[in-house]
């Protein structure tokens, strides 16, 4: 497995779970007369809400105002509607490649300069007539997907696959700014007070069964996601910040927000289901997967995106084919044709096997581990068919200390852990000098990080021992292990650290074990299945763990990691000031003032060390020589727009 496997899962969890619950102080402004907050249980206007038990109901009925009144009652601001590929094409027109493609392909990526040349000359969109539109790409994917239903997305693997088959209105660009895709939308407007978003869809959008995609599909999907009986793993958080979604006609969809939040632009982005299909089956089987009809849909889903699933062998491969109905209506081209005719996802979990596969030309892309990058991909056997590139990425790894345990309640102990760990050994020896040290939660080159860079912790055993002494952990019973009297019992400072079974991660934990042994702290390293690790962390049943987070599209998405009682606050961290700063940051609309809030959070976390931050992992990818157009964002080469959409293969000469 590449080192990213479970972290990538967690990353998406972080990305998707954009916003945790905030106190719903419903604002009584000019809309209030149209949006009466009705008492719980009264049957309101939104007749689609199924009769769920009152206590579980997530949505209050809502009576949307007539469209004319809505349009005239507020000032509207236009929001960006773009074609991501066209934007990239414009940007690249201004840059000249540093070398020809043939020259770049002959190069070996041994220096930063070489990396830059390869990226600038191979990471380009095709000129007219250059691309082979009949090409097939064999993509590597490290685990199978759980479901083909887009609202059931919960890991990056599903995001990778369903992002290509699914229909959505919005995207994120390379600098993680949101925009509406011109392939789906003709206009996107928000009210000046930030409480309403109005989107007008194109009229030439069709599901794979030939029915039109309309605004009603979006309104319907919102109701499904918000139905407490539907087991939606990730996409409900964020979406639950919406007050209502209403389709005024086939093309006009309006999103009503509870509060004017900076994160509202993310909350309106959720996957879309075909209403005409699920309308009939949903009430009978709210799990969306058990009934016969849903089993059939799982096997061959009705999709609205550029690709459809044509074959799926569990644990082996998923084959997608380009949908003509996406780009053409009545044989007339209405949208850009995606570059690949067929995409074959090959599921290979073992990193050694996948490396052999890319060397043999069986897959076209692969995320490389530091060991693979440094020692396994330097010879002719790799360069014969492939090349490799690296770029910065916002993924960082850490040890999490469970603050609810007697060991880590004290900040001094957590800081002692950070001082005891040999960061240099980890970076140099275990990570082959490829990863940058991380000092805090937000990436230091992000806009939300403090201007004055925080100094990453360095090993200082004297300081670590002094802090442990100060915190009262002293070896009283002469067994070489520090201990402390807690509730009349002598508790030794001995704990387990959970880690997923990947060689590099286990090695890092073994290094922690060695280092802490030196200062009289005993660690048991417990490698477990990544699913077990997720389970244990979600249930807070651990003392320490090794894990990672990827950057969400917005720093606010980290609130569900740090706010008191937040769902992904595995370490039980609680600091009222951090809670307040997140709440303020969300309401603050000015970017630079927001940045100050998040910078302050970063500083507080740095002082408190609920995590020992370890390193920031950049992107390291191997690509087949036949592949072009890879462009990297802080979320890697795929998870943004155009992302995968800019990849292509040249026509055979």
């Amino acid at each position, binding site marked *: 497995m590449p080192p990213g496997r479970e972290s990538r899962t967690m990353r998406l969890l972080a990305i998707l779970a954009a916003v945790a619950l905030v106190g719903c102080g419903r604002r009584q402004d000019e809309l209030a007369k149209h949006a009466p907050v009705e008492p719980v249980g009264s049957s309101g206007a939104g007749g689609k809400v199924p009769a769920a038990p009152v206590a579980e109901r997530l949505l209050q009925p809502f009576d949307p105002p007539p469209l004319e009144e809505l349009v005239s009652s507020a000032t509207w601001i236009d929001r960006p509607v773009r074609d991501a590929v066209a934007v990239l094409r414009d940007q690249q027109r201004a840059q000249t490649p540093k070398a020809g493609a043939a020259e770049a392909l002959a190069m070996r990526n041994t220096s930063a300069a070489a990396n830059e040349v390869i990226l600038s000359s191979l990471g380009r969109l095709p000129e007219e007539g250059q691309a082979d539109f009949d090409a097939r790409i064999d993509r590597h994917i490290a685990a199978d997907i759980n479901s083909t239903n887009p609202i059931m997305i919960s890991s990056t693997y599903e995001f990778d696959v369903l992002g290509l088959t699914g229909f959505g209105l919005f995207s994120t660009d390379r600098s993680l700014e949101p925009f509406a895709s011109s392939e789906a939308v003709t206009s996107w407007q928000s009210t000046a007070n930030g409480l309403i978003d109005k989107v007008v869809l194109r009229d030439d959008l069709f599901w794979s069964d030939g029915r039109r995609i309309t605004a009603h599909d979006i309104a319907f999907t919102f109701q499904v996601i918000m139905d407490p009986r539907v087991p939606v793993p990730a996409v409900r958080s964020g979406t639950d910040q919406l007050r209502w979604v209403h389709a005024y006609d086939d093309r006009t969809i309006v999103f009503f927000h509870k509060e004017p939040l900076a994160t509202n632009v993310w909350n309106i982005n959720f996957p879309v289901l075909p209403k005409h299909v699920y309308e009939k089956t949903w009430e009978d089987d709210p799990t969306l997967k058990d009934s016969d009809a849903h089993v059939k849909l799982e096997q061959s889903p009705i999709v609205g995106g550029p690709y459809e699933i044509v074959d799926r062998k569990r644990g082996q491969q998923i084959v997608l084919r380009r949908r003509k109905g996406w780009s053409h209506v009545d044989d007339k081209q209405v949208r850009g044709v995606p570059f690949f005719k067929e995409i074959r996802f090959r599921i290979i979990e073992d990193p050694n096997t996948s490396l052999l596969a890319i060397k043999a030309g069986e897959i076209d892309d692969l995320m490389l581990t530091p060991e693979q990058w440094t020692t396994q991909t330097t010879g002719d056997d790799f360069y014969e068919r492939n090349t490799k590139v690296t770029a910065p990425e916002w993924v960082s790894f850490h040890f999490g200390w469970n603050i609810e345990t007697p060991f880590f309640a004290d900040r001094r102990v957590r800081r002692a852990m950070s001082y005891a760990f040999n960061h240099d050994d980890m970076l140099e020896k275990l990570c082959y000098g490829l990863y940058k040290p991380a000092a805090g939660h937000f990436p230091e080159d992000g806009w939300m990080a403090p201007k004055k860079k925080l100094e990453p912790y360095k090993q200082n055993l004297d300081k670590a021992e002094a802090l442990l002494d100060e915190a009262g952990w002293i070896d009283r019973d*002469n067994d*070489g292990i520090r201990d402390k009297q807690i509730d009349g019992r002598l508790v030794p400072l001995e704990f387990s650290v959970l880690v997923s079974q990947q*060689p590099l991660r286990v090695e890092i934990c*073994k290094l922690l074990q060695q280092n802490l042994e030196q200062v009289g702290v005993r660690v048991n390293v417990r490698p477990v299945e990544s699913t077990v690790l997720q389970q244990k962390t979600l249930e807070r049943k651990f003392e320490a763990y090794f894990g990672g987070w990827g950057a969400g599209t917005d720093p606010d998405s980290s609130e569900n990691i740090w706010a008191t009682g937040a769902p992904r606050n595995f370490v039980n961290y609680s600091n009222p000031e951090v809670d307040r700063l997140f709440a303020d940051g969300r309401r603050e609309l000015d970017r630079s003032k927001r940045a100050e809030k998040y910078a302050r959070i970063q500083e507080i976390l740095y002082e408190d060390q609920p995590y020992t931050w370890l390193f920031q992992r950049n992107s390291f990818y191997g690509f087949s020589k036949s592949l072009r157009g890879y462009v990297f964002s802080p979320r890697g080469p795929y998870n943004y727009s155009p992302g995968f959409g800019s990849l292509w293969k040249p026509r055979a000469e």
Partner: protein
Amino acid sequence: MTASLPRPIGFWGDAWRRFRRRPLAVAAVAFIGFLAAVAILAPAIAGTKPVLCRYKGRLYAPCLAYFDRRLEPVVFAQDRFRGSYPANLAAKDPESWAIWPLVFQDPFRAVRADEWPGRPANPSRDQGRPSRTNLFGTDQYGVDVFAKMVHGTTVALLVGFVSMGLASVIGITLGALGGYFGGWADSLVSRFTEVVMCIPTLILILALVAIVEKPTIWKTMAIIGATNWTSIARLTRGEFLRLRQSEFVMAARAAGAGPLRIMLRHILPNSLAPVLVPITFGIASAILIESSLSFLGFGPPPPSASWGAVLNDARSNLSMWWLVLFPGMAIFLTVLAYNLVGEALQEVTDPRLRESRK
């Protein structure tokens, strides 16, 4: 004067006489003896903690910490040695002296530069070819393979003996009960044995390892032992079935001996020879199972040295041949040795084979 008769050789003496005539089997026994010596002396062969040292007027044996980390003398933790002895001993007590292991290398961590005066740091990544300081090379993280192999011997031998010891106790007890009493006891034991035989050991172990809260090498051994007793039980049962009808058992019974006494005193010693054979083969298979588990990453939790784990390190970089060759050879030779011993035992104790092969 009585004529001095030659002392009768007896069954075991005869077997040993025949055993000695097989050079391969004797070599195998010698090899196992050698491994046992390596296992016991492991901390004195390779390690970074003194075998014996005098520090502030007292004698210590810090090397015992390799057997159990609780055995490390506390004084060194209190004096902040932080696991690095050579420099600290000299600095904190100039009067001190120490006897060092033959090879100054650690099975769990890479030796740093100048930890041993004048010795460079262990090479890491794919640079750790076998050399004078690292006899069998180092792994990707700079840990010495020779030290890992030496300390891994302890694990390999322990796994073999402990798990098959447990399997023998279970197998002989159940087989004896079934064979001696017959009837419903026999069918119960036989059916139970068949049920256990049907369970694929490796898969059962993988499942159990996933459930167990705190996996240790001892639990792995227990699981291997608890699943590998079936052939022992079947053979013991057969022997007991055969012998309980024999004259000497009848004589014992006539003399008033109880069932327990008959089983332990009369039948068991006479049925041991054929039972030893599956035990010996079982030890070989237990070592293989432990290596496969470590190779798959389900072995004993860190820190622990295991031959299979070294092989697992090799998987990510096959060009580091020393990570394949040394542990592979060790596993191969050890399993071969036990199999040779088992085969020889079978031949020297089975009268039919003995007649045919002389």
